[in-house]
């Protein structure tokens, strides 16, 4: 046993920590460094699914019926398998159309029907209040167990004014108001709350695992030991077989399946799950991780359920102690009060997490879908009235939070003792499961209508009330129990738990079957009976095709609105519901996006009206927003033809957009091509300029000497004969240089422009080389250089232009002759076969060329050597030679021999393309 003051102190301390976490989360969000921008936080926040029910009820159920606690967790796993498909669509729809609650979602889908929104809200409140009571019951029972000891499970009834549970409820209400209704956000996001819930998910998991580990390895010697010792009890032996002692045929497969499906739907449809999974989702890609981390969390928190349940039964003796309290009573009874306290805090956190999120979600619905429509209908509160409504909205929500918690407390006080934890929870599950046809089918079937949804919900809810709610009320003793046993007025066929004589199912499965059957039948039947009106059809389209229609690239979703609006009315309405600053920001943003300079110049067209309506919908729900917009502007009634027309326009617009996109792509491509061509032209132009400039320079240089020397000789008749002769020699040699240059420039121009004449003849390369060496022998003799030939015999005759090849050889040889040293000059000429071609090498022992210049040497006017040693070359010989070799499909290069000697070489294929 633990002193009450300690338990209360620890609980208060825990709530303060929670408060700090939430405050930190909000502070971070305010500074723009969001804490919840992580898929891990998102996944943990989904674990709000695990409530006190998981904490205490699962163990109870496991001790009583073995694996039956599992469908409640396998169902969500199955739902999450489709999470990326279904939940992502819900998120996309909710974020596109600013939907902030499940009532809003359904109402918006069916033409923003206020009636539907109110109905969904009512069903939710009635269905969820017992669930809230269940949390309070768990907190209360745990408290009494910790403080009074395991023998006294039920706390003594005390007056409500002394009841700690009431104060817990009120404290939670304060907490929830603090973080759930801090400000009016059109996205209805509460970062601090999400951070707190994620934190709670960690606490409850760790606490439960700690208890599990304590039981399994502290009190027993592992899981196998628990099971081995359980064999001593006949009640436990058959616990982990289907159908217990009676064999698998006695197993309620239908009940099992129904429970799985129920859990699968609930994880999508419970208000708190919708709030966390859809409304608070900051990035739909977080689903990629959350969809598997959340089931993994569920698996982890369930791993020790069976060990605790069976271990507790073994230690206390089967049936001697309420198994729902094992999590607390086992550590308490075995000398670990601190662990028990920790486990209690875990359970408390499971309960508070659920209570906070559930009440925020329900408060939003009550405010937007019950209270606001009623207020709007009242005189004097008309939509044309003035005044900022944001404060009023927040106060309504605060009141709703307190109201929901008080309702839960009352239910707990009145009916809390009649039911086990699990049964209460399942009643709520079955209630929200009624939303499944309208919401889930409506997301994929455009044909669903408002009347169908209304009929389905009403029918399903009626059946739920009759087959599940009324019997539970009767079992509390408020109604004659005979009604459940024998049916109303003795009509056995109408007995609520055996409707129409359906036996063999448990009451939950039976109720689920009938209610969902009626629900789906009415939904589908009524939808098919009446065609949807224009607004239903347009909303259906926007929901079903949210991925296709609401693409920013195609201008967003089509806007189904016709009419006239005045900018002043819109701004006034937005300011009333969003607050002046947010309204101002909204219009400024719209002005910016549409490219209009200032807000005053905005045109109040359909798109602006739609935008304002969506923002208001975020604050008051889409149904109320619709009513307010409709009364603030002059609308034309929307006919089904208009919907089709608008769709047609939208798809045309989309077509235009696509065509425009294609056009601009091809235009861009053309521009790029033009730019490239221009660049190429420019560089060609530049090359030409360079060439002309170089030619000019090369022509002027010999001309300079010729002119100057001629002038000098003319002016100086007294010049001596030797001097005169020397000058004349220079004139002659420069003239030769000039004519050689002119020839080569012309030659190169002809080759490059393709106008050169090419002869084709049989060429014996050996003979050609020998003759070329013969031609240039005078040069070598002058330089005192030796020429050595190594010519292979096996080189076949090729077809080429012998004159051109001779030109190349002479070029290379005279080039070598220029560069050989004055003494011991040596030139090696080699011819050899190289695969399907021949290679000619001309190597000299002159100065080499730096490796970096091996290619540049083939550029025009790029002569090797320095100024002094540069012979009277034109700088065109090598480029011309290379062009010739290229023409015959070969290539020419310069390489550095192993001893550093330069070696010009070319390779010619035997089959040359230049030959016919």
């Amino acid at each position: 046993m633990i002193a009450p003051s300690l338990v209360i102190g620890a609980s208060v301390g825990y709530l303060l920590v929670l408060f700090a976490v939430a405050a930190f989360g909000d502070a971070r969000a305010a500074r723009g460094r969001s804490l919840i921008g992580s898929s891990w936080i998102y996944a943990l926040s989904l674990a709000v699914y695990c409530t006190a029910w998981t904490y205490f009820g699962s163990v109870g159920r496991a001790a009583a019926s073995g694996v039956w606690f599992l469908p409640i967790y396998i169902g969500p796993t199955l739902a999450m398998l489709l999470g990326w498909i279904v939940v992502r669509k819900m998120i996309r729809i909710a974020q596109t159309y600013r939907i902030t609650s499940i009532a809003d979602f359904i109402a918006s889908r069916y033409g923003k029907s206020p009636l539907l929104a109110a109905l969904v809200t009512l069903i939710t409140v009635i269905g969820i209040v017992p669930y809230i009571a269940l949390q309070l019951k768990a907190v209360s029972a745990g408290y009494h167990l910790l403080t009074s000891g395991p023998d006294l499970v039920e706390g003594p009834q005390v007056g409500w004014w002394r009841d700690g549970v009431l104060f817990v409820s009120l404290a939670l209400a304060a907490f929830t108001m603090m973080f759930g209704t801090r400000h009016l956000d059109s996205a209805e996001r509460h970062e601090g709350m999400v951070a707190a819930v994620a934190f709670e998910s960690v606490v409850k998991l760790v606490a439960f695992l700690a208890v599990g580990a304590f039981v399994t390895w502290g009190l027993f010697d592992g899981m196998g030991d628990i099971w081995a010792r359980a064999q001593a009890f006949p009640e436990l032996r058959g616990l982990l077989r289907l159908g217990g002692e009676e064999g698998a045929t006695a197993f309620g497969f239908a009940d099992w399946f129904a429970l799985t499906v129920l859990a699968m739907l609930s994880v999508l449809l419970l208000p708190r799950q919708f709030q966390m999974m859809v409304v608070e989702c900051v990035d739909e890609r977080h689903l990629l991780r959350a969809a598997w981390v959340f089931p993994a969390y569920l698996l982890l928190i369930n791993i020790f359920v069976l060990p605790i349940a069976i271990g507790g039964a073994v230690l206390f003796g089967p049936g001697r102690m309420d198994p729902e309290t094992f999590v607390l009573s086992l550590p308490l009874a075995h000398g670990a009060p601190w662990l028990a306290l920790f486990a209690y805090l875990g359970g408390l956190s499971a309960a508070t997490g659920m209570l906070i999120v559930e009440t925020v979600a329900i408060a939003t619905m009550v405010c937007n879908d019950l209270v606001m429509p009623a207020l709007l209908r009242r005189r004097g509160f008309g939509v044309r009235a003035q005044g900022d409504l944001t404060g009023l909205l927040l106060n309504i929500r605060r009141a709703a939070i307190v109201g929901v918690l008080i309702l839960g407390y009352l239910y707990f006080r009145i009916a809390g003792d009649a039911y086990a934890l699990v049964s209460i929870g399942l009643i709520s599950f079955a209630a929200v499961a009624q939303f499944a046809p309208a919401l889930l089918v409506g997301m994929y079937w455009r044909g669903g209508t408002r009347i169908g949804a209304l009929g389905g919900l009403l029918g399903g809810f009626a059946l739920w009330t009759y087959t599940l709610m009324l019997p539970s009320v009767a079992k509390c003793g408020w109604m004659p129990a005979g009604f459940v046993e024998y049916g109303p007025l003795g009509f056995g066929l109408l007995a609520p738990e055996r409707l129409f004589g359906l036996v063999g199912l448990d009451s939950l499965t039976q109720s689920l079957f009938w209610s969902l059957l009626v629900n789906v039948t009415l939904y589908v039947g009524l939808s098919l009976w009446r065609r949807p009106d224009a607004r239903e059809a347009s909303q259906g389209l926007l929901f079903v095709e949210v991925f296709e229609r609401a693409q920013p690239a195609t201008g967003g979703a089509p806007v189904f609105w016709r009419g006239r609006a005045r900018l002043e009315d819109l701004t006034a309405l937005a300011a009333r519901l969003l607050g002046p600053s947010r309204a101002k920001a909204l219009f400024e943003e719209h002005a910016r996006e549409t490219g209009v300079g200032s807000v005053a110049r905005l045109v109040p067209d359909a798109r602006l009206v739609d935008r304002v309506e969506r923002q208001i919908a975020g604050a008051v729900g889409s149904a109320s927003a619709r009513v307010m917009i409709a009364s603030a502007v002059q609308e034309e009634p929307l006919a089904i033809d208009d919907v089709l027309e608008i769709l047609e326009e939208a798809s045309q617009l989309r077509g235009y957009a696509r065509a425009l996109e294609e056009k601009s792509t091809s235009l861009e491509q053309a521009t790029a091509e033009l730019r490239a061509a221009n660049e190429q032209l420019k560089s060609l132009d530049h090359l030409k300029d360079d060439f002309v400039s170089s030619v000019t320079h090369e022509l002027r240089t010999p001309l300079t000497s010729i002119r100057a020397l001629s002038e000098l000789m003319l002016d100086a008749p007294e010049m001596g004969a030797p001097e005169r002769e020397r000058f004349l020699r220079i004139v002659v040699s420069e003239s030769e240089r000039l004519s050689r240059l002119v020839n080569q420039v012309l030659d190169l121009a002809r080759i490059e422009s393709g106008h050169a004449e090419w002869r084709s003849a049989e060429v014996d390369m050996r003979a050609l080389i020998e003759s070329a060496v013969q031609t240039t022998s005078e040069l070598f003799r002058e330089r005192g250089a030796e020429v050595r030939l190594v010519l292979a015999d096996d080189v076949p005759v090729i077809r080429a232009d012998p004159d051109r090849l001779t030109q190349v050889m002479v070029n290379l040889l005279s080039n070598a002759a220029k560069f050989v040293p004055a003494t011991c000059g040596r030139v090696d000429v080699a011819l050899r076969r190289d695969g399907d071609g021949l290679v000619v090498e001309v190597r000299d022992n002159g100065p080499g060329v730096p490796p970096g210049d091996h290619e540049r040497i083939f550029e025009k006017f790029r002569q090797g050597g320095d100024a002094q040693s540069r012979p009277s070359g034109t700088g065109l010989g090598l480029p011309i030679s290379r062009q010739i070799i290229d023409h015959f499909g070969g290539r020419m290069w310069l390489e550095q021999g192993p001893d550093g000697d330069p070696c010009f070489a070319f390779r010619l294929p035997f089959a040359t393309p230049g030959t016919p």
Partner: protein
Amino acid sequence: MSVKILIADDEANIVVTLEFMMKREGYEVLVARDGVEALATIRRERPRLVLLDGMMPGMTGFDVCAAVRADADIRDTRIVMLTAKGRETDLARGAGVGVDAYVTKPFSTRDLVAKVREMLG
């Protein structure tokens, strides 16, 4: 003592021509075959005037001119730029680095001699 003139050109025949002309005018002639050598000779011999070829390998005539103008000791050297590229951009470049006169190849011997005489006078 006669006036020193430096001839800087990488074309041997042009050097021969210019050398003959300048010697006949009575100047003392120095010869450099590239830009680096020209600059070194200017620093060492302090010629009054340089006939500078614009296109020499390594250091061009423009580089030499810029270096001369940047050096306080030899800044006053007169520079006649000889160039085979008579393009506008070259003229501008020459003016940019502080050339005193600009002569396009091929040149008239009389004009060149007259210009040199005038610049030294």
